[in-house]
Every structure is written in C-alpha cells, then in structure tokens.
C-alpha cells in the first residue's frame, strides 16, 4: 500500500478553483518529483496536504498510510509525520531557532506518548543533525529564520526535517535560491534522510536538482492537474523541450523563471 494516496483532490480559495482533480500515489521509501509552470498549483497541493486552512477542499480524499488525513488539524498531521519544507520559510522574531524546534519536537512526542527531550539531550541531537546540512551553530540560537539569507533559510528547513524525522516530507522548491555548493549540501542532506520508511515529494523547477536527488517518479502539473507522469527521463525531456512540448504555451509561466520571482 502506498504511504501517501491522493485521490481526485479538488481545492479552492474563495471561489477560485486551484486544484482540479489530483491523483497521486507515493510508495513508502519513494521519492517523487513534481514539476510544472508557475501558478500551476504545486505549492497549493503542498499546503493542502499540510492542512493550511486558507484552502477549501471541495472533493476527494488523502490517505496517509491508509488513514484519512484531511480531517486532521495541521499540528496533528505533523505528529502523524507530515513535514513541509516551505517555499518561503517564515520569520518569527524573538523566538530562538532551537527553542522553536524543541517545542515542536516535544509537542509531537507528547502526541505519540513519548517522553519529552530535555534541553541537554535535545541540544546534542540537534548538533549532530545540523552537520547534515552544515548549518553553523550560530544559526541555532538566532531567531527563527530572522535575517537568514535565502539559502540559509532553505538549509534550516532541511535541518528541521532532520530533527523531526517525518514519514512524508514535502519539499517545496528547496533548491531555488541556492548557489551550486549549497545545492549540493542541501541535496546531500536530503539524500542522507532517504530511507525505506520515508517518502518524499520534491517540488522543483530544475531538473538539475534531480541529478542530485534522483527521483523514482516525475509528475508534471499544469492548471491544477497532473498532466503527465513518468520516470526520471521525463524531467530531462522537459528540460530539453520546455513545457510547450506538453501542449502548454503560456509564455509567462516559463519554467526557467523560477519560483522565487513571484514574491
């Protein structure tokens, strides 16, 4: 059975339909890439899976390991093992990065009936995990994402993922805004977290990332639907031929512009 099953998912904001029937099955241990032009609904899909209440699900269902996900609050989904690496990580002034993460981890542990980690044990664990993405110790005690550069924010997301050890990780354009060395570091971190129990959905505009994080499957989204699915070679083909090849000719939505341009 798939770890994540998305069936005929429709969602909207206000009266604007954004997701128009998504079907997606991700097996345990698999990595799936989602590509697609700007505005095609990739981040919306990620947000709906994580439970953002700005989006209204109008049809369909989502199962995590066979359990319905959509009725759960975002924090309950997190405790079930859903993790979203944000396209735009949020700043929380005055709240220390480590304090934030320990609060999150312990909240999840409480739900699972596990003992909370004390500050010392947590610190040791966090230090160990931070090596994975080479996040400098200085970042640990700064306020959450405040004054972090774009690349530092993305690394911090993967660091959080390493600490929280989710079953399903959704990485929304974790590669955009990274220089080539940082890209390697982050991809290395992600690969280090691949395991037979952990599935990942990697949203990206660049096939280059998929050289480092090699996906089991690639999906192309457009207009709120998955219009094509295939193996790794689909990404290469897309890179070569552009979205026009799939019958999409929206010039503004050119994939090469990247996701960061919208904000």
């Amino acid at each position, binding site marked *: 059975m798939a770890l994540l099953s998305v069936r005929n998912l429709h969602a909207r904001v206000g009266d604007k339909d954004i997701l128009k029937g998504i079907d997606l099955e991700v097996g345990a241990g698999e990595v799936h890439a989602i590509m697609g032009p700007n505005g095609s609904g990739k981040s919306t899909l990620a947000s709906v899976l994580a*439970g953002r209440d700005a989006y209204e699900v109008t049809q369909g269902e989502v199962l995590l390991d066979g359990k319905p996900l959509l009725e759960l609050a*975002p924090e309950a989904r*997190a405790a079930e093992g859903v993790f979203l690496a*944000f396209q735009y990580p*949020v*700043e*929380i002034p005055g*709240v220390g990065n480590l304090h934030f993460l320990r*609060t999150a981890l312990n*909240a999840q542990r409480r739900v699972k009936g596990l003992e909370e980690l004390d500050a010392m044990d947590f610190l040791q664990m966090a230090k160990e995990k931070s090596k994975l993405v080479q996040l400098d110790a200085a970042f640990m005690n700064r306020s959450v994402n405040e004054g972090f550069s774009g690349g530092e924010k993305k690394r911090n997301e993967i660091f959080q993922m390493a600490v929280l050890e989710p079953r399903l990780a959704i990485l929304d354009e974790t590669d955009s805004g990274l220089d080539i060395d940082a890209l390697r570091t982050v991809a290395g971190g992600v690969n280090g977290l691949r395991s037979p129990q952990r599935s990942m959905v990697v949203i990206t505009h660049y096939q280059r990332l998929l050289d480092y994080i090699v996906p089991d499957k690639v999906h192309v989204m457009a207009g709120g639907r998955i219009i094509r699915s295939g193996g790794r070679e689909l990404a290469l083909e897309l890179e070569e031929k552009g979205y026009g090849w799939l019958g999409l000719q929206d010039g503004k939505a050119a994939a090469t512009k990247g996701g960061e341009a919208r904000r």
Partner: protein
Amino acid sequence: MTTDTLQELTRRPYAAGFVSAVEADTFPPGLNEDVIRALSEKKGEPPFLLEWRLKSYRHWLTLREPTWQAVTYKPIDYQAISYYSAPRFKPKKDSLDEVDPEILRTYEKLGIPLVEQQRLQNVAVDAVFDSVSVATTFKDKLAKAGVIFCSFSEAVREHPELLRKYLGSVVPHSDNFFAALNSAVFSDGSFVYIPKGVRCPMELSTYFRINAAETGQFERTLIVADEGSYVSYLEGCTAPQRDTNQLHAAVVELVALKGATIKYSTVQNWYPGDAEGKGGIYNFVTKRGIAHERAKISWTQVETGSAITWKYPSVILKGDDSVGEFYSVALTNNLQQADTGTKMVHLGKNTRSTIVSKGISAGRGQNTYRGLVKVLKSAENARNYTQCDSLLLGDKCGAHTVPYIEVKNASAQVEHEASTSKIGEDQLFYCRQRGISQEDAVSMIVNGFCRQVFKELPMEFAVEAQKLLGVSLEGSVG
C-alpha cells in the same frame, strides 16, 4: 486565522479572582478632612504627616481629573469609595504566626508563600493586603546588611527623619490629580533604604492584593538608594474578580543618589474586568525616579491586568552621566484599555535613556504608547533611543503611538523607531505545521515579540510574566 479562533484563545478565566473571607475594619465610603484625620490617627502618624495629607487634599480639591489620555470610563464618584480597609488584627506583625491564616492562604494560593522557610528563592516579600502591609519576610538578613525594608506605616514610626526628607521629593503632593489624591489618603506601601555602597543581598518584592469591595487602594512606595548602592525591586499585584470597578491610585518614588542603581520591575495583573468590560481595576499610577550623578534607574513593566491602565514610569536624569531605562510590555484584551509610556527628562550632561515599549492588543483592546523625551538646555550630549513596537491579534483591537520629543540642546541625539505588525496566518501555520498547537504558537510568537523586555526581568519574574501572557491571551487568537 479567523477572529473566532482568536477569541477562543484569549478567553480564559482570571485565576487570581477569588475573594478571601477576612474580617476587616473598613471606613464608610466618603472623603473629607475628618476622614483624613481619622485615617492619620488610626495609623498613629506624627503631625507633619497629617499636615502633608491635608495640604494634599486641599490641593486635590482644586484639580480636575485629567482627560487627555486615550481611555474612556464613567466618571468616578470619589465619595462612594472607602479610603481605609484593614484586616482586623494588630496592624504590624513581627512574626508570621500572628497573621490571619486566611491571609497567608490567600498569598499561598497566589503563589507567594510568606513562610520564609518554605521559600526557595532569594526574595524578601512585603505583602500588602488591602490598605495594610501584613508581613515582611527576611527582615533579619536584610538588617544585617543595613537595608531597611518595611511597610510605609512602620517607616513612619521607625524612620521619620528619612521619610520626612524624601517623601514627596520626587512626586510632589501637587503633581497631578491622582498623585494629590494618593498623598491625601495613602494607606500603606513599602519603604526601602539601601545604605551607602551596599549591594542589597536579595531581591526585594512587594505584593499588592486588593480584597475588600468598594475600597480604593492608595499605596505609596519610596525607595532610596544611597551613594553607590544597588537594589532590585519587584512589584506584583492581583485583585478579586468583582463586577464593579475599583480604583488603584498608587505613587512610587525612587531616589538614586550618586552612583546608585535601582532596578524596578512590575508584573501587574490586576483584575481586568470580564469579556464584556464589566468590573476590573482602574490602575492610575504615578511612578517617577530621580537619578543623580552616574546613577541608573531602570523600569521594567509587564502590564497584563486592569480595566484601565494609566501610568508613565519616568526618570529625571538630574546628575551628569546618569542613565534611565524603560522596558515595557502592555497587553490589552477584551475591552481593556492601556495608556502607558514613560517620560525621560534629561537635565545632566552625557545623560542617556533607552525606551523599549511592546504593546499587544487582542480582542477589542486599545493600547496607547505615550512617551515624552525632553532634553533641557543643560543636558549637553544627551542621548535617547526609543523603540515602540505594536502587535495586533485580530482586527477589532487598536494600537496607537504618541511620542513627544522636546529638545533644547543641539548636541542631543534622539532616535525613534516604531513598528506595527499582526500575528500572521503564515507564522501560525508555520508553527502548526511543525506540530505546535495554535494556542502554544500564539503564546510563543507573543513571547518572542516581548523577548527584549523579558530579558530585563529577574529570572523568576520572567517565567511568571511569560505564563501570565499566555494566560491573558487564552481565548483570543486571531
């Protein structure tokens, strides 16, 4: 985030709202010279003090209640208030054994055990119950260091010379409407004297509790730090939940002589009234300090209670190289109103002041920062830095910033920064996605917002303040 969830989160009962069954000796409501004479006699005061009270009263009669502040309330009937209420026992206790067990229980319930042996923290407490100081702990240890820490009434009897010298020296009897009223009718409060060169060996703390109904609380605090001394003083307050408004008009005077440091922290949690704005304390307080040469006065306040807060802890930077600081968190929820800020008056050369104000508004709360930075001609090279940040939870509350700056010396450097933000839906979602509940997320974000101020508080107080902020916000997130 919807306003509904916000409201849900800020709605939580006031934990200190119980009434204690203590027999009390209470004056009938009303105010005239005879009441003041009776009060003074009851307290066995020397003639100079009665004269001072009467002078204040007569001056008060010529004053009008101020109306410039951004708060609204029904006119107060000063004849409907009782000006004295004391638990019925010999007013000053040498041993806690003599204190009414019901009062001890009240303080215990509030988390302030007065029984010294049980106290783990290094804090001496003076507990003021309605109008009277009921117990002061750790007196012996303090006496060894030469520190005087006692109730105001006791100071009147034991240290009249010090009192006479400093009473009204910072906040004159004629200062303002509420200060004049307080000077006429003040009941009790705390007195502190730190001798030359002494670093007070422990935190000093006064805990104010209003219990009786229909009484006002008018306490006075006077702290004198002699040359080169240091003291850190904490003030906490709560009151029972009643559906009528009660007046609290206190005066605090700080005197920091040459090279002395006074750190004064307040965690104010007077009953704020219910969600419809019924009841609650009117907290109209005058707090001011005077800093002599190289002295430093630092005010830190966390204001979460009261129906109305009206206070401007101020520093007169009289001596050269003196320093004034004001760190404030003011939270208003439901129908609470706060008009608070500070005055920094620079007289001496190279005087420096820092103001950090954090206003949080939730529900239909209204929060105003009102601050004055005044640099006089004599204040060569004065510097001020002011930062005012407001955080809004929901869309029915308000935040207002009213800075007044008066500079009469061109060498002054005055800096002002202000910001207003909302708790963003994106911040909350980010926290929740990581597994943190909405309520904890709000409290975390608000605490982060206040961090700059909380780090100025003594440890135990910082923890209490954080908890208090969480509680005060329950039922309000949005």
